[in-house]
């Protein structure tokens, strides 16, 4: 077992060696520009891209023409939201999203607000899921887009996408989903789910960084987005720029592997995740964040009360994890996602996200359990709050000198 152990697979995943192998020829012998239609170098590159498009489309139940390659999920989110706003402005200016979305969605919406968009930011319930009744109540005849993420990056909860899509369509709006954390991890099918636009990326599914895709529906209805970058009219005019051929080939291979191995992999990972989670929740004053059932198979987010997340991560020095504590940022504000679940600031500061992945072993999980418990106990010995809690002091009754 090599240390440190990587348990931050929601941030990024390692490249699968089989993906790397598929990419390599496109860095040297097949270096051509996929848009060069008049010679063999171009054809070889184009062939690689076409095949990748099929592989990606197959993973999500789409057709090749509905896949637009981008630089990653952030670009796909921006292209979808801004592109729909521009394309459908005659129809309306209202967009509905939710407070736990990724910043790429939230900030794209904020940008559009300055350009005249009306945006509704739906709250989430304590378990991290939106209330469908609230969504329906927020819909108006001006609503052009509902953008709700598939699986959350911090707590892993899976939104009721199919039901959300049905509500959006009932009111004539498009449904877009940021599925960055879900694609390749759980079955995602754009037809079954009723998705009109979907953003995802290579590096969260054992593919390379710097390449992603936007699914844009072509039938029932035919969806169009206005390009956000002007140039050579690549990707059916929706995304100009010379194609990142090695990256696209890698994304394609990654998608194929996910499609073939997902069923087995998600079973294995959810068993390991459950083991990690239940062992850690045995500890006194530890709490699971987010809905327990509707969740991605590989992630868990736990708050260890009375210890601070960043200090805790330092004690877990052989584990690469992440925390909802914002001690590293100048704002001192902890995770907005955890806070929108109604978590108090101190519990948000005390959270750790564990993200398992394709290469995580049971031995590593056992080690992680042991080291986390040790670290939590060590820091609780150092914590004045733990001592006060043990003495029966009600911490809410203490007058803290906020700084």
């Amino acid at each position, binding site marked *: 077992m090599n240390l440190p152990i990587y348990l931050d697979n929601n941030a990024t995943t390692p490249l699968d060696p089989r993906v790397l192998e598929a990419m390599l020829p496109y860095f040297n012998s097949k270096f051509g520009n996929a848009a060069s239609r008049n010679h063999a170098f171009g054809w070889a590159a184009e062939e690689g891209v076409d095949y990748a498009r099929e592989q990606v489309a197959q993973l999500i139940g789409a057709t090749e023409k509905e896949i637009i390659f981008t630089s990653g999920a952030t670009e796909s989110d921006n292209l979808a939201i801004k592109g729909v706003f521009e394309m459908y402005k005659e129809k309306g200016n209202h967009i509905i999203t939710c407070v736990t979305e990724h910043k790429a969605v939230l900030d794209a919406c904020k940008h559009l607000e300055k350009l005249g968009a009306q945006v509704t930011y739906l709250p989430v319930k304590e378990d991290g899921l939106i209330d469908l009744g609230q969504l329906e109540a927020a819909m108006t005849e001006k609503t052009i887009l509902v953008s709700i993420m598939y699986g959350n990056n911090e707590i892993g909860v899976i939104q009721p996408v199919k039901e959300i899509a049905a509500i959006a369509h009932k009111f004539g709006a498009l449904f877009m989903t940021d599925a960055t954390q879900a694609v390749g991890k759980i079955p995602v099918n754009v037809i079954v789910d009723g998705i009109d636009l979907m953003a995802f990326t290579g590096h969260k599914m054992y593919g390379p960084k710097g390449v992603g895709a936007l699914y844009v529906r072509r039938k029932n209805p035919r969806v169009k987005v206005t390009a956000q970058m002007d140039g050579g009219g690549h990707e059916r005019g929706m995304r100009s720029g010379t194609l990142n051929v090695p990256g696209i080939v890698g994304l394609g291979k990654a998608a194929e592997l996910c499609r073939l191995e997902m069923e087995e992999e998600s079973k294995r990972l959810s068993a390991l995740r459950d083991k990690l989670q239940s062992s850690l929740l045995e500890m006194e004053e530890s709490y699971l964040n987010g809905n327990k059932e509707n969740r991605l198979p590989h992630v868990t987010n736990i708050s260890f009360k009375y210890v*601070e997340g960043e*200090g805790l991560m330092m004690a877990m020095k052989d584990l690469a994890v992440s925390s909802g504590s914002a001690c590293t940022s100048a704002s001192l504000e902890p995770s907005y996602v955890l806070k929108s679940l109604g978590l108090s600031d101190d519990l948000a500061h005390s959270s750790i996200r564990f993200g398992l992945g394709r290469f995580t072993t049971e031995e590593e999980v056992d080690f992680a359990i042991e080291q986390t418990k040790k670290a939590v106990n060590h820091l609780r*010995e150092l914590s004045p*709050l733990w001592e006060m809690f043990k003495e029966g002091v009600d911490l809410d009754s203490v007058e803290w*000198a906020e700084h």
Partner: protein
Amino acid sequence: MAYSEKVIDHYTNPRNVGTLDKSNNSVGTGLVGAPECGDVMRLQIQVDENHVITDAKFKTFGCGSAIASSSLATEWLKGKSIDDAMKIDNMDIVEELALPPVKIHCSVLAEDAIKAAINDYRVKNGLEALVSEKSHH
């Protein structure tokens, strides 16, 4: 962001972790910070009849830099008179631990904890509380 060696040392082997009897008149206690902010420091000093600090203990809820700042503070306090201890400046802590700008608040908190502990001792022993000339808030 990487931690300095000194922060790691204090974090891994924190000096003077513990609790003194806060009801004792020779003990001064400073509890600063707030759980919502992600930092709470409790610093305690044991003071002799000559107003010299003979022992210091801390417990801290916070990041590695906050723990290291309070651990360092307890080391510096031991053997100092309460008047000299009052002169410890947060920037001395920043320098000693090589804290980056985003961690300066940890040193500020440690300085606040020192002053709060001294003032607690002073008030308990019939001395007036001293007001720091600089305000961080």
